[in-house]
């Protein structure tokens, strides 16, 4: 039992060391800033300028987009860069499991995404009269969404590439279409029935729904289903990411 607990303790300490190193090294790198901050804010501004909806209803959209883009950008910046510099090999030759390495990197994405997404919450509350009506749901939204999207980034970072662009491009092929079916630009209630089913399959839908619900809005699918589906995606992305990185090790 002691052996097991010391083993797990060691894995957690090493995973955290990887997280802290990634935070120090990659948070201010241009690709992280561009894809993680500029991109969602620019998308939001271009959308919000053309809409007549009140700003308080748009704050949840900004929170969701920021969680989505910022959390999923760290893995695709960090892993290809480390692959190019062969610093990723340092982890593979260290006495730590691949799971802990990827959890460390996922955690770096979670902290980045959740940390940046706090800004629109604070701005909304301080300057635009937004109200947090359900803090627990907002917390669940932040934790589950940043986990699922960070794991999505780690999953895409298993694509063999040595520059962030080589991973960001296929990732954006997935991220950008999701904006159109996830209640970001068009409310789910206004979508045709078939598209509502498709919308339910998008993880971003559930982030948007939870963010709206936490700020006094309505949800189409309900917070229980939102939380369940986001949890399923988080686990699935993490599991697939690990499998794909192991496949890479077999191929390399």
């Amino acid at each position, binding site marked *: 039992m002691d052996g097991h607990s010391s083993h797990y303790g060691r894995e957690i300490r090493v995973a955290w060391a990887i997280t802290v190193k990634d935070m*120090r090294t990659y948070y201010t790198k241009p690709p992280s800033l561009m894809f993680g901050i500029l991109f969602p804010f620019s998308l939001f501004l271009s959308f919000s300028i053309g809409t007549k909806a009140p700003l308080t209803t748009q704050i949840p959209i900004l929170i969701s987009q920021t969680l989505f883009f910022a959390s999923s950008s760290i893995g695709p910046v960090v892993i290809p860069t480390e692959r190019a510099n062969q610093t990723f090999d340092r982890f593979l*030759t*260290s*006495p*730590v499991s691949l799971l802990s390495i990827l959890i460390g990197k996922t955690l770096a994405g979670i902290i980045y995404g959740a940390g940046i997404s706090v800004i629109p919450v604070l701005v909304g509350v301080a300057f635009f009269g937004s109200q947090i009506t359900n803090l627990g749901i907002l917390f669940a939204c932040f934790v589950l969404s940043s986990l699922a999207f960070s794991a999505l980034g780690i999953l895409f970072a298993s694509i063999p590439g040595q520059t962030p662009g080589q991973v960001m491009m296929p990732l954006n092929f997935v991220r950008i279409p999701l904006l159109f079916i996830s209640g970001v630009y068009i409310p789910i209630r206004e979508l045709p029935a078939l598209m509502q089913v498709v919308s339910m399959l998008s993880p971003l839908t559930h982030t948007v729904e939870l963010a709206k619900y936490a700020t006094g809005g309505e949800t189409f699918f309900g917070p229980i289903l939102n939380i369940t589906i986001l949890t399923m995606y988080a686990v699935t992305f993490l599991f697939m990411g690990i499998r794909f990185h192991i496949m890479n090790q*077999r*191929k390399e």
Partner: protein
Amino acid sequence: MDNAVEAIGLTKYYGNLLAVDHINFEVKKGEIFGFLGPNGAGKTTTIRMLTGISIPTEGTAIIMGYDIRHQPIEAKEQMGIVPDISNVYNELSAWDNLIFTGKLYDMPKAYRESRAVELLKLFGLYERRKEKVQGFSRGMKRRICIAMALMNRSSILFLDEPTSGLDVQSVLIIRDMIRKLNQQGLTIFLTTHNLEEASQMCDRVAIINHGRIAAIDAPEKLKRTVESLQSVEVAFATLPSDALKELEELPNISEVVKEGDKFRLFTDDPSSVLTSIWKYAENNNLKLITVNTLGPSLEDVFVKLTGIRPATAEEELEKTGRSKVQGTAQRRAEQ
């Protein structure tokens, strides 16, 4: 358990390409083991499998008694790795690079800090420990990389081309360091293109070619397997224009290679060739400035065993525009 490394049927396929073909070898504890081979022979693939970066398609390796496939954590605790490029974190300081490595090995704080101080002083980098590594020279980055590999007081150190592309001073520092570490009991697994370095430093060498072990033995024993490649090296004060052709016509000479300002005459009878050279110099009124008889070098063994292809050598000669006579390495290989 006398072996630090045991490769057991180690095999790697890349798709249909067989990169490493069921190789078996042992590295004894406390020895410097050289791993040589031409580019693409399977050196780096082998080292990547031994260190757990890449998973073998078949076979396994035992590192200090631990199976790298089934006990990877325990096996990795025993090793330090210096890859072919200095994979340091350029954004971090020298100090932070070492401390982070200590964290990866879960070393306690006080221990990792004292070890970092010790290694930075050992490698002459303590005064610059707070500087970001991106400003360091290539040789300094190499030293940091080796220091990182030594943080966990490993039992075996894997070094992939440790002196490649470095200035003379850095090369000497690193070679001296490797010898000292080995004297302290550390097993060294060294891949290098520098055959002279391997000959000088290694207790045993393995030569890998086309993914298979072509030979494995002590350098001097390997040299004795190609005794037919004896030669006489000669240099004249002034160089006659037809010297190459005339030297080739001397008796008992199988081949003449021009090496810089010297000629190397391959023969199985060096004494008769020496006599012929004296006569040739006297008849042509030439002053000899160097005459050496040479045994086969590790390079000769390497060329013979790897059989460098004539087409490749010809291409190289055409690229450099040098005499075709120089491209005779492959002919030696065929002897």
